[in-house]
């Protein structure tokens, strides 16, 4: 069965190759390339390199990320480099193919465990096929140079090659008919093809020992008929074996081109295809000149050039530059101007639509607005990341002064980021709220941020919306939240407070952290605090547990 499949495949290969040979342009160029190809395990190299390229194309990511991830990504790079290097060895040092093919085979096997099951199996399979091909490759024992253009050259070399090729031809004849018979017996559907293979094999083998023309009456199918036609013009074994080899090469070329094109991104199929099929035209056609010309390597540049746009495309990391002072100050400058019209007009309109008529009062500060419009110069203190320069405030970054037992959990101590998101919620209800007043939180760059600090035994937020601008991009989160035991730190808070029992809403008020003295030794406890149409600059949320539902996270450019 195995030999039958092989025989069938070789017949298919020959037929396709014959057709391709007639169809493809530039026969002289291809002949020269063919010679170079046959002095080395060329298709083995193509498979191995394609496998390596496919393997590394999957996990390509910005380098810092790949390093961070460790084994998975870096081993993909390492193994694919081994495979590509092995392929180059096959091309330029074919005499070392034995050892190198063992190395590439082991590397391909290793890739299954370390990188994406070997590039989802594809890269590993290509690497194994190529390694096996290279391992089994033997240099052609026939002196090279028989492919001289023109039928005379072929015929002249014919007798010299005859013994070698004859053995192969008769071998093919011996196996093919027998397997064809079994194939016909087992597989009625394949009987037709099997018969074709049978006839073709006999037609090839027949001229060897018997010396009669091809086209034996027994077959009469496609390949045999063409062999018969060919025997009229040349009829020598050298030519037919030459054509068989070229046919096999052509099929290998086709499969390899498909594979390479699949491995390389769609943007660069052209160089890959051109590398395998043809050449820039102005080349001489003295073929003995060819094999040792290094620039002849058509496919090696193909895949490797093709792959280089891929790392280029995603190689350099562009980490958000939110942390840089310039970016931050620019963002901070943007914020008030951008927020000014929307804060009064659009937002109140929106809140009114959703919540009933809401009037947004001017902020109650006069000094600091926490980024909202206010009289006088731009506030300094609540700008994200700015260090409050109040020489009298010596309590910063120390535990708050507490008279008696301060309720709730202690203040968060870890460093916060100076850039903070804007959050909104349709309603925010805090049960068991403890309003600590204002305090300072340390930022990562050594500064501090003045914030309002509220603790709640339970906080329920409807349609909570989180919007973070950083480095030219916007992250938004929409979610419903139910958070027990939470500490919230905000730069400012706008909203209309619902008065308990009366169920009346106040106009929207705005409180910035800066009008509240820091670290007052008092805390206000409210059993229930409900705020509607909330907007806040949320610096920090510290919670033991967060229950969420209807979560949607989006990333976008600003």
């Amino acid at each position: 069965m195995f030999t039958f499949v092989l025989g069938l495949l070789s017949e298919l290969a020959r037929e396709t190759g014959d057709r391709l040979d007639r169809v493809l342009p530039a026969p002289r160029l291809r002949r020269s390339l063919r010679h170079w190809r046959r002095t080395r395990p060329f298709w083995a190299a193509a498979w191995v390199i394609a496998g390596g390229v496919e393997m590394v194309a999957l996990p390509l990511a910005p380098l810092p990320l790949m390093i961070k991830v460790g084994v998975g990504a870096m081993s993909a790079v390492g193994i694919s480099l081994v495979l590509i290097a092995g392929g180059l060895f096959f091309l330029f040092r074919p005499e070392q193919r034995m050892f190198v093919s063992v190395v590439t085979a082991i590397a391909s096997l290793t890739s299954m465990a370390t990188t994406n099951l070997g590039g989802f199996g594809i890269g590993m399979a290509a690497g194994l096929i190529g390694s096996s091909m290279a391992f089994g490759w033997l240099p052609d024992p026939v002196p090279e140079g028989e492919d001289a253009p023109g039928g005379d050259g072929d015929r002249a070399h014919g007798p010299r090659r005859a013994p070698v090729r004859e053995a192969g031809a008769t071998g093919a004849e011996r196996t093919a008919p027998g397997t064809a018979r079994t194939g016909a017996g087992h597989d009625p559907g394949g009987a037709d093809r099997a018969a074709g293979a049978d006839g073709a094999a006999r037609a090839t083998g027949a001229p060897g020992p018997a010396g009669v023309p091809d086209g034996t009456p027994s077959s009469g199918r496609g390949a045999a008929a063409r062999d018969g036609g060919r025997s009229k013009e040349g009829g020598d074994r050298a030519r037919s074996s030459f054509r068989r080899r070229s046919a096999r090469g052509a099929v290998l070329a086709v499969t390899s081109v498909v594979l390479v094109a699949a491995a390389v991104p769609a943007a660069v199929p052209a160089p890959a295809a051109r590398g395998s099929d043809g050449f820039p035209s102005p080349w001489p056609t003295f073929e003995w000149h060819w094999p040792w010309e290094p620039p002849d390597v058509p496919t090696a540049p193909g895949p490797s050039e093709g792959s280089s746009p891929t790392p280029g495309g995603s190689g350099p990391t562009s980490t958000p530059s939110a942390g840089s002072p310039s970016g931050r100050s620019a963002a901070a400058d943007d914020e008030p101007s951008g927020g000014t019209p929307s804060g009064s007009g659009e937002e109140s309109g929106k809140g009114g639509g959703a919540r009933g008529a809401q009037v947004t009062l001017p902020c109650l500060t006069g000094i600091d607005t926490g980024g909202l419009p206010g009289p006088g110069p731009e506030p300094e203190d609540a700008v994200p990341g700015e260090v409050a320069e109040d020489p009298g405030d010596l309590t910063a970054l120390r535990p708050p002064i507490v008279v008696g037992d301060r309720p709730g959990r202690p203040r968060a101590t870890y460093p916060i980021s100076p850039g903070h998101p804007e959050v909104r919620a349709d309603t925010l209800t805090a049960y068991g709220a403890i309003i600590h007043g204002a305090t300072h939180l340390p930022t990562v760059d050594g500064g501090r941020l003045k914030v309002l600090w509220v603790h709640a035994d339970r906080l329920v937020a409807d349609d909570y919306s989180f919007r973070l601008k950083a480095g030219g991009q916007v992250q938004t989160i929409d979610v419903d939240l139910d958070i027990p035991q939470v500490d919230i730190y905000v730069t400012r808070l706008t909203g209309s407070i619902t008065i308990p029992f009366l169920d009346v809403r106040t106009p929207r008020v705005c409180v910035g952290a800066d009008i509240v003295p820091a670290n007052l030794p008092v805390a206000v406890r409210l059993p229930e605090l409900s705020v509607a149409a909330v907007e806040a600059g949320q610096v920090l949320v510290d919670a033991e547990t967060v229950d969420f539902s209807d979560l949607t996270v989006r990333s976008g450019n600003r």
Partner: protein
Amino acid sequence: MLVPCTLAVGALGIAIAQGALAASFAVSGSAFKVSASEITAEGVSSFPSSVGGSANDARPVLLAGVKSGTVSDVCVSLKQRLPLVGDITMLVRSGADKPLEGTNLVVNADALTGGGGRVTGVEAGRDASTLTAAPGVTGPRGTFGVQASTAVARDVRSTAYAANGGTLTLEKLEIEFSRTGKQCF
């Protein structure tokens, strides 16, 4: 040579399918869709980041690092346009019977929806350069970061650009290629 190699591949495949050998994953480049019925994670760090080359074609994503986690009933689909073949979709399913286990996962997602869940030990606002929940995953200084000690999310759907798993132990992997454009959602 092909025969022993094939045998070795079979042995490796069996070892991975049995969960004896942890396979390592790292995928990126184009967007792929992930859905899972439940995700549990221990040690989560997250901050905004971007994927891609130059500044103009960089895609903003939310980077999430997970120290260890499990995923139940996961589906990953990847649609790729191949030359000469056309659009082809690869669909991978696993974890229906027993959840996948992974360690040191890093995911870049640009969209995510979840039916609900619970997060504990939340510190939302901690600077990204000081995150500690997932080892080795820290962001640039001055970036808003979130970390949590545990997280559970149900009915998660996400569009991700890169998923890099330190190790992933799985059982029963179904891979399906199709040209009908069938995706996870």
